[in-house]
């Protein structure tokens, strides 16, 4: 079963979608936490603590491996400003953000090592080549895979620290139409495609003053994804006067994946019930502008820059877990995520709005060593109308929803 699962992972499209969180953040890093509104910074649930709170990892009783994947089905609808009635809808590919965590360390040792591979940022939107915003965007795919070796140290039964180094690798692919038509009516198109990488870290502290209460605080640093030597390709009318204006063949870009500070609390009023609440501060203000630098001119310009000016936001998460029996745990949760995109800055890449997520999940213990997690998250973003006057985006009204089922497998040893 594990092999099959890995094969599925390998064949899947490793990207998340815009609809999962503000901006292009994808908050889908643990199947148990997804079932609880993605809260869990103040808990020591399983190996996903490598992401949620490295300080809690050393408080896990057992080592283990966890593999999980979500099937992200996000749809965005667009309507042009009144009195226009033209509508469009994205045809996004199903994307599959995943997570894989493993921890090692002797049972009696206060020290744990871990490694996590997960996809905290990503975006996949496909508006196609016919909608009226096509000169802004046809299709955008952003993928970022974080690889995080981690060390966690349990100072006492009440206190733990953890730190992880993050190496991020990914790629970006952006396609948009160019408003130049050839004699066969074909419109021009530009495609930017490049690999990106960056580095960062993940720090966490876990504190459990009494049996019924635990607290967690984490800082996940900004990761600046840098594209060097990306490819630029054009489809254009063949006239030399036109092609001579589009000389670029390579591009570079930097995209900041913002820092997060999360404070979490875990509360266990009874043996069977766990309640978790997180407040996450996402420092989106790092994302000032989307800039591409070219090795040669495009219509006389060697770079293009459109302002984004995102603002920092808070995400509020609340979740609960009820241990029905030895083999079954049920979960439910919700979150509220403020949009980092200010008025006037909406773009078709991330037509973002304040979003509301509700989720449910369960875990079935298949044996002493193997657990199966399942989760389901529904995200509904508020309908948002924007004139896109500051971002050079596409004015209109946008509405997004997403349905995200996920499964995870835990093997404990």
């Amino acid at each position, binding site marked *: 079963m594990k092999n099959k699962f890995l094969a599925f992972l390998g064949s899947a499209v490793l990207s998340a979608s815009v609809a999962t969180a503000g901006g292009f953040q994808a908050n889908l890093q643990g199947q148990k936490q997804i079932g609880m509104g993605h809260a869990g910074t103040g808990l020591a649930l399983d190996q996903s603590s490598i992401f949620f709170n490295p300080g809690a990892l050393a408080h896990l009783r057992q080592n283990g491996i966890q593999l999980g994947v979500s099937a992200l089905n996000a*749809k965005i*609808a667009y*309507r042009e400003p009144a*009195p226009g*009635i033209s509508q469009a809808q994205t045809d996004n590919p199903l994307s599959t953000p995943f997570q894989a965590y493993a921890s090692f360390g002797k049972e009696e040792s206060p020290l744990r090592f871990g490694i996590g591979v997960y996809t905290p940022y990503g975006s996949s939107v496909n508006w196609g080549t016919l909608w*009226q915003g096509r000169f802004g965007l046809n299709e955008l795919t952003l993928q970022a895979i974080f690889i995080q070796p981690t060390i966690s140290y349990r100072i006492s039964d009440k206190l733990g620290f953890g730190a992880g180094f993050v190496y991020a690798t990914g790629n970006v692919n952006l396609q*948009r139409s160019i408003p130049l038509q050839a004699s066969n*009516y074909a419109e021009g198109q530009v495609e930017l495609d490049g690999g990106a990488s960056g580095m960062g870290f993940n720090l966490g502290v876990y504190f459990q003053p009494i049996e019924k209460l635990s607290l967690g605080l984490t800082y996940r640093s900004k990761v600046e994804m840098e594209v060097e030597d990306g490819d630029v390709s054009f489809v254009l009318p063949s006239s030399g006067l036109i092609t001579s204006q589009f000389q670029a063949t390579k591009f570079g870009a930097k995209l900041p994946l913002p820092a997060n500070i999360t404070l979490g609390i875990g509360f266990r009023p009874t043996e069977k019930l766990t309640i978790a609440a997180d407040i996450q501060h996402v420092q989106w203000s790092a994302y000032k502008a989307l800039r591409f630098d070219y090795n040669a001119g495009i219509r006389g310009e060697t770079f293009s820059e459109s302002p984004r000016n995102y603002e920092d936001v808070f995400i509020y998460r609340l979740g609960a877990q009820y241990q029905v029996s030895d083999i079954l745990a049920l979960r439910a949760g919700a979150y509220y995520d403020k949009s980092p995109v200010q008025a006037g800055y909406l773009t078709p890449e991330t037509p973002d709005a304040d979003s509301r997520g509700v989720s449910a999940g369960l875990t079935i213990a298949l044996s002493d060593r193997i657990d199966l997690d399942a989760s389901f998250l529904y995200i509904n973003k508020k309908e948002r109308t924007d004139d896109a006057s500051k971002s050079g985006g596409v004015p209109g*009204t946008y509405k997004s*929803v997403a349905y995200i089922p996920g499964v995870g497998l835990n093997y404990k040893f």
Partner: protein
Amino acid sequence: MKNIFYKFGAAALLSSAFLFSGCDPEFEDDVQVSAGSLDLSKYVAVGNSLTAGYQDNGLYLEGQVFSYPNILANQFSFAGGGAFAQPLFTNEQRNGSGYLRLSGFTATGSPILQPVTTNLAVRTDAAPLPGGPRLAKASNLTGIQNWGVPGISVLASATPVYGGVNPYFERLLADNEVGQVSYVQKVVATQPTFFSVWLGNNDVLAYATAGGVVDQANPFGGITPTATFNAVYSQLIAGLSRNKTAKGIVATIPDVRSVPFFTTAGPVFKAGLPAAVTQFVVLTKSGAQRKVIARDDIRVGNTGTTLFTLTSSAYLGLLGQPTGKYWRDQARAKFPTDAAARDQEINRYLQTYQVDTTKMFGLSVENPLPSALVLDADEQAEIETATNAFNATIKAQAQTHDLAVFDAHNFFNSIQAGFTQNGVAYSPAFITGNLFSLDGVHPTQRGYAIIANEMIRAINSKYGSSIPTIDVTQFRAVLFP
């Protein structure tokens, strides 16, 4: 033809709301569409080349299909509008009058415009009219709703004679009506429930595009007297309105100086002038009168006054040479085969305008730049006065008959600095500005769609209707080789 209609259909479809299914995101409010108090069951469009869909210096099937009245009718159909019949060319004759296409660029970046001469609707079985060769008659003479006639002016619309002059009007008339029925009579008889009138441009434009030259052989080539304009226009609107039974929209006449036909050649000419040339000589108005124009008076952007027509590009490069090319070309256009008549015509020109072609073209008083290539400050003043007077009439008639107004004069002036919409830059620049077709006067299909949307906004604002606008990106601008 199927292809063209398919494209219009696709544009229309992409501009309309469609239903999303099941799990898809839904908008809180449904699309609001309403005709308000308007009865859009029978829409009739009255006007000139702009209304016909003329572009690229010709009228052809594609331009007809994407004409602004057809776009309006399509949008009206969301709010109870009826069918709209246009006098379309057949697919075999899809290139209509012939038109210009962009075939490439010269080494210096100037556009090469090539005439399209196949699949024309030009008749060879009947004698040409004074306004040009006859064109194939429309197949639906009794039901026509788009009465756009390229070249027609308010002045011409009143006289029955015009049916025997203008081939675009003649093709909309039964044989027994030609020369018997005026344009005003024909369109008033259609009794629309809703109409659009965009007429009057040619009451100044013919004079303007000829560089302020009145062709003595063409009774419709000058500026129409204001009183005549007033009388005919009022009669036309009263006839269509039928005492406010029908509603409609009228459009004003744009400032001729806002179109690339007059703004493209001058700046290029000025930039290429040798520093030693500080002034040049032009003929002004219709006689042998000369005028000296300073180099700095060439209008570039907002400075200077003198405008050069797009047609002057072919001759401005000859400045300073002993040449009579312009006059030879004029004579050849008039007498393509008869060499003797041509020579006689050239001599007539040289005498009338007192030109000595052995002298330096444009620089010497004896060989001035022809008036038809230049629109100087005096000529512009005449045009401006007339345009303002005509527009006052148009707006007053709208007021009297409770009609919406599309202020094209305002609109074209407001876009002079350019604007960006959905990631596309628009400006009045020739070829690159996306708004004007290859003749520099008429809009592209995209430009016509933008105009249609402006009209819809004016109609909605006047009558409280909610007629949807169309997605203009579905319409083409200039096609590049």
